[in-house]
């Protein structure tokens, strides 16, 4: 038993050294429900960054764009391009959804990689990217599900459900299953990527504090951007898929 506790102590020591805090949450209580405070704080910061920069850049649009306006026009063109490619000609009403999906995830991911959240000490848990929490990714994925159901139902009415027996009625179970796997894969892909990325960086920093983690950090930035793009593109693809006419 002595030996056991000793080995556990050394494990604890390693654990404290690496400083990885996974699944630790800074709980708030709201009306008897628990809330992850660190996620809400960082999400507010992300929302503030987005709204502030957008308001500042688009406040007074010029015919010949400069600086911030130019950047935001580029971003809008990019979002429109993604929506148009996936949804088709009727992409217009979906630009806010796809765009916000992309921007929120992108800024969240990059805030986790770039902003020094860890400087601010919390009583329990630590600040990290909002997409680091399963609640955020599942919320976004469920919103995507709602969005594509809404798109299909408004476009085609109840005949939207005809797609479940589309090629043959045999595929009905698989088609129904798809509605569950879509949000599941969306949320877990994002969650896993961001969490794993942050873990890799933290562990590497704890092992080799200089130089070595830098390439991994850049890789993290890259994956963060890619994940945001993938999430937005897939959301747009699902919406487009439910809107396209089947014969």
């Amino acid at each position, binding site marked *: 038993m002595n030996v056991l506790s000793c080995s556990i102590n050394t*494990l604890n020591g390693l654990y404290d050294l690496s400083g990885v805090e996974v699944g630790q949450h800074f709980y708030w209580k709201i009306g008897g*429900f628990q809330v992850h405070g660190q*996620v809400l704080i960082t999400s507010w910061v992300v929302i503030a960054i*987005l709204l502030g920069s957008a308001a500042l850049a688009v406040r007074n649009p010029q015919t010949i764009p400069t600086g911030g306006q130019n950047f935001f026009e580029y971003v809008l063109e990019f979002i429109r391009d993604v929506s148009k490619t996936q949804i088709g000609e009727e992409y217009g009403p979906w630009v806010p*959804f796809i765009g916000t999906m992309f921007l929120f995830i992108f800024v969240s991911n990059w805030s986790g990689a770039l902003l020094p959240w860890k400087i601010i000490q919390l009583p329990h848990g630590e600040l990290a990217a909002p997409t680091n929490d399963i*609640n*955020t990714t599942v919320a*976004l994925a469920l919103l995507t599900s709602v969005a594509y159901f809404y798109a299909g139902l408004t476009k085609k009415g109840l005949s939207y459900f005809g797609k479940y027996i589309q090629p043959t009625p045999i595929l009905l179970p698989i088609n129904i299953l798809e509605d569950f796997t879509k949000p599941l894969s969306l949320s877990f892909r994002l969650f896993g990527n961001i969490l794993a990325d942050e873990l890799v960086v933290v562990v590497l920093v704890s092992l080799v504090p200089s130089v070595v983690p830098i390439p991994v950090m850049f890789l993290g930035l890259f994956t963060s951007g890619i994940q945001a793009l993938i999430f937005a593109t897939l959301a747009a693809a699902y919406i487009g898929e439910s809107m396209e006419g089947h014969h």
Partner: protein
Amino acid sequence: MANMIMASSKTLITSPPTPKSTPTPIPSLTTLTPKFSFSIPPKTLTIATTIATTLAATPLPSLAEEFEKAQLFDFDLTLPIIAAEFLFLMFTLDKLYYSPLGNFMDKRDAEIKEKLSSVKDTSTEVKQLEEQAAAVMRAARAEISAALNKMKKETAAEVDAKLAEGRKKVEAELQEALGNLEKQKEETIKSLDSQIAALSQEIVNKVLPVQ
């Protein structure tokens, strides 16, 4: 990582928490490794078996305590709050960013297209203007040539008139001179006539003896 996920399910964490700070003599690694040596002393063997059994029975009790609140898949009110925040962000960004800037960009695109097409229109305008210029040039040339012809005619007429005048003058002078000459001739003839009569009288007088 596996431990953390395992610990995330609350039912697993039922083992009684062991006191964390148990003052234990730190055993060297050699006591931990005798499994791999051939001659196993019975005492260490029993230690090893107790380790194995306790490990199997309780999955690292103090670590479990450490991760008691470690919950990766912990769904709570955060989920709907984040969803609401997302919807709020979507509508606000739409009001603030997508719609105004999108409309602005569309308007600008339309303007640029309009300007481009109007530039194509001005090419016909330019052609028209060129034609106009050519017409003006032609008119000017015609005017100039007409003026030139007129002037040529005028000068020719003037010259003719002057020539005719000069000729007339010369003729008149010639006439006068001829008239004068005629007169002089007649006068001389007349004077000669009278002299002839006198001379012939003289000759007659000389030749014929006076009667």
